[in-house]
């Protein structure tokens, strides 16, 4: 299964994974390896205190792009399931921004696919971060660093 979701409210990564795993197509005794990445909002960036953030996205293209990059990663690694959830809208420090979870028979594929999905998402999915600093200034994050 591939499940991709944009989340306008609080994202609870573990609840999202548990709901995903409760589906009948999910056979817990089949996979062995589950690699998960959770990205969380920090309260600092480039030396400044950040108090809030708006996550803008290109509705429609974001979902298409996440789907396309997932299919591309699945061509390279033997993976059974992929779950991606990403926040949109207004968040505060410590809020989860993204969860990527991958299930595979082998840990090597699970790790590699999870990592490659995160890199592809950071590179290609049309999201933009707009930070609110502690002095009230707002600024756009200019680019993601390579992982």
């Amino acid at each position, binding site marked *: 299964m591939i499940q991709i979701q944009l989340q306008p409210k609080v994202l609870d990564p573990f609840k999202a994974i548990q709901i995903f795993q409760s589906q009948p197509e999910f056979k817990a005794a089949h996979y062995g390896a589950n690699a998960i990445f959770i*990205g969380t909002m920090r309260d600092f960036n480039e030396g400044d205190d950040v108090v809030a953030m708006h*996550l*803008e*996205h*290109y509705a*429609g*293209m974001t979902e*298409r*792009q996440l789907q396309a990059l997932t299919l591309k990663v699945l061509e390279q690694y033997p993976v059974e399931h992929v779950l991606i959830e*990403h926040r949109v809208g207004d968040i505060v420090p410590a809020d989860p*921004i*993204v969860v990527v979870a991958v299930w595979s028979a082998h840990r090597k594929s699970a790790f590699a696919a999870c990592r490659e999905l*995160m890199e592809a*998402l*950071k*590179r*290609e*999915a*049309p*999201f*933009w*971060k*707009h930070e609110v600093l502690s002095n009230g200034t707002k600024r*756009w*994050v*200019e*680019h*993601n660093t390579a992982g």
Partner: protein
Amino acid sequence: MSVKVLFFASLREQVGKGQAILEYSTPITALQVWQLTSGKDLMPNTVRVAINQSYSDANTGVQDGDEVAFFPPVTGG
């Protein structure tokens, strides 16, 4: 013929609008769409172009009814 044009994030602020409809009569490229709607001749080389929600580039020709989007480097995740 016409295309729907979208600007996102810092580009939306720089251009001063989030979307526009561009009507045109002879074939044009995404770069010309940019020039005719953003009020800027040059497109910074960091600008990413999407046509119908897939990545494209400035030299690609647009078709009647296309959705053409311009945005800065993405910063999700």
